[in-house]
């Protein structure tokens, strides 16, 4: 039994991070797309479409980070110092965009600065999340259970690629959200943006899918050895199919399906990365079992998490249901 608890926790934290990526992904995406709005009114419309939700999206980030600490303190204590700068710069980006939600509505003459802060903060936070992702996948230097590398070890071309990939991906999610939740010029422009963004995301996924097996032998082994490849080949195929359908739906003027397709694309990429690195939490030096807290601690939180998580998902769903449909005239900040 004890050997499974760390795996359950890895799945739970994986789920929290996945939910964070989807939920904050589309609202960070709105920020990334902000500079492309034609006028302030459009920006208001964009931000109002996410205003009721964004606060509720943030706890997933804390659950991901905090959960890592609780369940895998050794991994937390290695990953955070190793990715010190991207983590803190991401937090600073999130601060700027977070306060900009409220500040924009209260400000008069200084509104343009907070518009800038919202766009800049969102983009920087997304880029840093990509750096963190890349920094983890490419591995971290660990000695005696502690981070033993330098400040800028994370800053490789691969991590930069991941950074740009995440920015593009979040922008795609944001654009598809706008297609679903808004009307008029904002929705039309989002539909136009979504197509090149979709191609961009596919390109980044393609490059990462080629780069990781070439650069990291364990990942090559995982994907291309027998019998693994027999089970894993559908993943890239489904990914291509999803992207094709997303394109068709965007062309056909559909409103909800493109967003769902964008989420599915993200999940496929995410599952692909998870397959690449599991069971490592810190590739390729620390597995989920190496990094675990003692069973008692993992179990104590697990007992509460199992009933609480469905409840959280239920009331989160309820709030999305309350604010369902297109953004109504005059809704949002007054």
């Amino acid at each position: 039994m004890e050997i499974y608890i760390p795996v359950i926790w890895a799945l739970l934290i994986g789920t929290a991070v996945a939910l964070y990526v989807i939920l904050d992904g589309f609202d960070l995406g709105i920020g990334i797309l902000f500079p492309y709005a034609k006028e302030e009114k459009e920006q208001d419309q964009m931000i109002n479409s996410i205003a009721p939700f964004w606060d509720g999206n943030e706890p997933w980030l804390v659950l991901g980070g905090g959960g890592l600490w609780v369940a895998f303190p050794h991994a937390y204590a290695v990953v955070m110092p190793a990715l010190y700068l991207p983590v803190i710069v991401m937090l600073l980006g999130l601060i700027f965009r977070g306060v900009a939600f409220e500040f924009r509505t209260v400000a008069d003459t200084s509104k343009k600065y907070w518009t800038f802060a919202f766009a800049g903060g969102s983009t920087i936070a997304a880029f840093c999340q990509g750096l963190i992702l890349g920094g983890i996948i490419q591995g971290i230097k660990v000695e005696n259970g502690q981070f033993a590398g330098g400040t800028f070890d994370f800053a490789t071309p691969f991590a930069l690629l991941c950074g740009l990939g995440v920015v593009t991906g979040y922008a795609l999610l944001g654009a598809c959200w706008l297609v679903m939740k808004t009307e008029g010029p904002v929705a039309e422009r989002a539909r136009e943006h979504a197509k090149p963004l979709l191609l961009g995301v596919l390109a980044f996924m393609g490059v990462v899918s080629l780069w990781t097996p070439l650069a990291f032998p364990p990942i090559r082994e995982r994907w291309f050895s027998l019998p693994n490849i027999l089970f894993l080949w559908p993943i890239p195929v489904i990914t291509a199919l999803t992207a094709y359908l997303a394109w068709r739906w965007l062309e056909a003027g559909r409103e909800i399906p493109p967003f769902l397709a964008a989420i599915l694309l993200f999940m496929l990429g995410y599952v692909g990365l998870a397959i690449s690195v599991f069971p490592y939490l810190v590739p390729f030096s620390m597995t989920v079992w190496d990094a675990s807290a003692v069973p008692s601690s993992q179990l104590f939180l697990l007992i509460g998490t199992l009933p609480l998580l469905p409840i959280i998902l239920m009331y989160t769903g309820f709030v999305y249901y309350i604010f369902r449909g297109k953004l109504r005239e005059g809704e949002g900040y007054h």
Partner: protein
Amino acid sequence: MDLDPVLLARLQFAFTISFHIIFPSFTIGLAAYIATLLGMWLRTGQDRYQLLARFWTKIFAVSFGMGVVSGIVLSYQFGTNWSRFSVVTGNVIGPAIGYEVLTAFFLEATFLGVLLFGWNRVPPWLSALSAAIVAFGTAVSAFWILSANSWMQTPTGHEVRDGIAYPVDWLKIIFNPSFPYRLAHMLTAAYLTTALVVLAVGARYLVAGRHEADGRTMVRMAIGMIAILAPLQLLIGDLHGLNTLKHQPIKIAAMEAHWDGSKPGDFHIFAWPDEKNEVNRFAISIPRGSSLVLTHDANGLFPGLKSVPPSERPPVVPVFFAFRIMVGIGLLMIATGLLGAFLWWRGKLVTTRWYLQIVQYFWPLGFIAVLCGWITTEVGRQPWIAYGILRTADAISPVSAASVLTTLILFVIVYGIVFTMGLYYINRLIVRGPQGRAIEPPGHDTPSRPLAAAHDAAREAIGS
């Protein structure tokens, strides 16, 4: 120049956590106040309560947003700056942080969306319920965070093997000895902080002759809270102090600048603790005052700072002064509350101009007291980060001092901008005051509607 990474990491954490605690101190109480106002709206059907609640909800949203983003920072800083701490204590206090997110943060952050934007989408009872859920969430959040912090002060229910703490008894870990006192003290402080802000804003409107009906409501509700909670807080604080004396006597010695434990302690109203020579300079003292408070006996003895070597003592000056400022503000709050209650009893609370003119400037008092209280207890815990288990100096991450310094400077700049502007915008919201008209909830139709609407329109027309 050699940079001390421990000092930099401490400065950074002190800065970010001080910034953060300001917002929960305010939002815990404000959420409860908004829920109360909405309860009054449901009960009386008077739209002015909805307007007042929406006015405070806007201020709440600005504060909560700053609290959320500055709180996320903390949950990551344990790892980025204090990775040894996270490994040594993670098994034991990690779950408290996990439960905070699961039972509180999700709840408050999710239902805040309904409270802020749901006015024309949900029935009134659901708006009020959302406010109550947000208020409940903020208090539950305090429960877990204070439990984790209290364990760092008075650890129980664990065992240490190879320098790492392992859980033994979860109930003892969560309900560790200082936790009930710290929780009661902090929650009361939060409600008092909010009450003082509400009082100051209400007084400001009355002095300026604007929003007078709302101003009267605010001043009365706030005085009701302060007159009860401020004296109660003195009692809770006293019990908390006795608990600290039992478990962290050296912290008490630092708070009182009490050097020699073989003599009864004087209460120093003012002094300059000279840590090098282990004496107090320029002391103005009440003889045996500390002994009387702490042991309830003028001849009672309690440990002095000299009972441990200097390496085991916390820095005395900040602890000593922070404690004095907190107590001073607490006494001022009691005076404010009791005087306000007296004026109310004489029917003059909302018309006594000199009183209102003074209390309109009292809004920062609660925040300063909360910050000073935390400085007292956190600096007073030094040199330990987890009392008796891990020293602060041994808790940091293997990151370069230059990185910590760089990010510290970034934090100071970013927080400086955000805080200044946040304060400026909140002030602007207050200057504008409650305004607009009540938002019609869906399917809401009562006979009093036309009259209430006319009343609102009239209010708007005369610009009140």
